[in-house]
Structures are given as structure tokens and as C-alpha cells.
């Protein structure tokens, strides 16, 4: 009967796996920043990860890289969903604005800010009666675009 002297010790080289994970981290980080930049001028888009303890710059272990990859992936999905939801809402607002412009009388006193259309600036589209009270009584409605941002206090 053959005798087995000992089980050979196997050292797993994790460098390839770490390199692969670092590439995934790089791709996710770029896509996350791309999402943030393409969201401009919309505000309130948060792409920062939940702060985690940092021991300074170092070679991350396989587990740390996996955790980072997962957190980035989750944040990217969240940011994309947030952006898509905002884009849908803006599309609905643009359609409403078109209807307001076509039939202002049917959208009395409706207000849509430029920010709600995904545009920059502080303008607000507002359906108002022409000539104030007289316009209200006579059914003369118009869409006014107020312009300019309020001065800082």
C-alpha cells in the first residue's frame, strides 16, 4: 500500500482576482461619475458612498475589493434609477408645459419651474390672467416666464 507523505500545501495566488476586481472598481467609479456629470444641472444627486473606515492608501485585500465593488455597483444602480425617475418626471412636466402653452385657460395658476424640467436657471412658467382681475373675469389667460434668480439675502 502506498503511503502518502503529506498533503501538498496549495498557495492560491489572488493577484489575478484582485487585478480583476480593481478593473471592475475602476469601471464602476467612472460610470458613477459619468452619471453624476450627465445629471447636471440637476441638483441633489448623491453618488458618494457611505463613509467607511479608511486606513490610508494601501493594497486592498480581496474581501475589501469585493465589498468596495459591491458598494459601488449598488450606488451606481441607485443613481441611475434616481436619474431615470427624475427624467420621467421632467418629461411629464414638459408635456404639461406644452398643454399649458396651448390651452392656458385649462391650466389656471399652474406653475412649473425650470428645475422641474431638468433645466438650469431660476425661471418659472406660470399661467396667469392677462390684466389681472379683468383677465380672470373674462377668461384671458397667458403663460408667463419669470426670469432671474432671487438675489442672495
Amino acid at each position, binding site marked *: 500500500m502506498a503511503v502518502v507523505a503529506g498533503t501538498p500545501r496549495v498557495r492560491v495566488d489572488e*493577484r489575478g482576482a*484582485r*487585478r480583476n476586481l*480593481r478593473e471592475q*472598481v*475602476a469601471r464602476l*467609479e*467612472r460610470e458613477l*461619475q*459619468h452619471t*453624476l*456629470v450627465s445629471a*447636471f444641472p440637476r441638483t441633489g444627486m448623491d453618488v*458618494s*458612498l457611505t*463613509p*467607511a473606515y*479608511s*486606513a*490610508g*492608501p*494601501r*493594497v*486592498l485585500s480581496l474581501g*475589501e475589493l469585493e465589498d*468596495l465593488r459591491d458598494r*459601488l455597483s449598488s450606488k451606481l444602480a441607485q443613481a441611475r434609477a434616481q436619474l431615470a425617475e427624475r427624467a420621467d418626471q421632467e418629461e411629464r412636466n414638459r408635456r404639461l408645459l406644452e398643454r399649458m402653452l396651448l390651452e392656458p385657460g385649462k391650466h389656471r395658476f399652474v406653475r412649473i419651474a425650470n428645475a422641474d424640467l431638468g433645466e438650469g436657471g431660476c425661471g418659472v412658467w406660470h399661467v396667469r390672467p392677462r390684466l389681472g382681475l379683468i383677465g380672470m373675469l373674462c377668461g384671458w389667460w397667458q403663460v408667463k416666464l419669470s426670469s432671474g434668480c432671487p438675489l442672495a439675502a
Partner: protein
Amino acid sequence: MEGDLDEPLLAEGWVADQVRDEFPELRLRTMAVERGSGKTPPEVRDRLRMLSDRFRGAQAIALRRSPIPSAYRVFFRQVGLDPDTTRTPVEEAAVRRLVKGAFEATNLLDDALLIALVETGIPLWAVDAGRAREPLGIGTAPDGRLAVCDADGPLATLFGPVFEGYGVTWDTTRMLIYTVQVPGVPGIFVDEAMWTCLGVLQDAG
């Protein structure tokens, strides 16, 4: 050598084996400058003012999609730094510009480093050549952090400020300017950053 600007002598730093195994494209480049710092001359102040005027909020956001700042941001992530907490040097400069309203002049060396950073996106640091033993390199500090080292040990944490005792002082007569070239950053940008920095230092007389 002819011309107004002396040819910068860029030297290649070493990278410790265990670091090179993980980051084969990581490089440290150094340049020796035969002078110290000094007061900010008026022309450098003007140049900073001009850079401030050209830099706006939209650029600060678009920075994240620019190849060079983005490469540093990605590398920060890969070495366990959160670039939203520990900002990359160029993003830090951009935020300071927006908060303070201008790129502020401090002293000749820091102004030269700042100008090179803003114009190229490449961060540079400087040590007193009389206190560091050349060549410099990238290694690991005893606590496991990646660090810029000389033959005796760490001089600075990677991307961090230079440790006390190695920085440039008013007595410094020779400086070593160094940069960390991360994957995805072409060498020509590093050369450009060094040239820009050297140009500012030499123009100051």
C-alpha cells in the same frame, strides 16, 4: 544648454516589488531643482489670478469626467481612499478655488505646484533634497500604508503631505519635486506638469 528654460532632469523612482506586483503601471517621477522656495513674485500672483478667472463651477463638476483627474479618482478608490472624503489633489484645489473665490498665492514653491496641478491635473509634491536620500521610490510604511520613501524610510504617505522634517523650508537650497503617476495617466502629462512647475520656479529668478 541653451534657452530660457533649463531642461528638467526627470528621474524614475523605484517601486517596491510587492507594490509593483499589484500596480505594474504605478510610477514615481522626480525632478531636482537647484533652488529653494521664496516669496510669491507679482507675475506668479497674476498667473494665479488669471487661472482663477478661467476656472468656474461647471469645470469643477466636469473635472470628474476628464481623463487625468478621473484616473487619480479611480486610483484613490483602488487603494482604499474615498475620493469624496479624501479629495484628489485637483478636486481639492477646485473646491478651494470655489470656496475662497480664487487660487490664493502662498509662496513660490506652493504656487508653482498649484499652477502645475491646475493646468495639467497632475499633483506634485516637494521635499528638501538635503534631507532625503535619492533616489525616491514607492514602498510600504510599517503600518502597511503606501508611501513615498527614500533609502531610510517613508517621507510621505502616498498622496499625503510630506512628513515633518523632510519638507522644503526657507533654508532649502535644493529641492526634489516628485509626482505619482497612476495607471491611465500618459507620461507626457507628467512631463508637462514638471515643465510648468520648473518654468514658474525659474522665471522667478
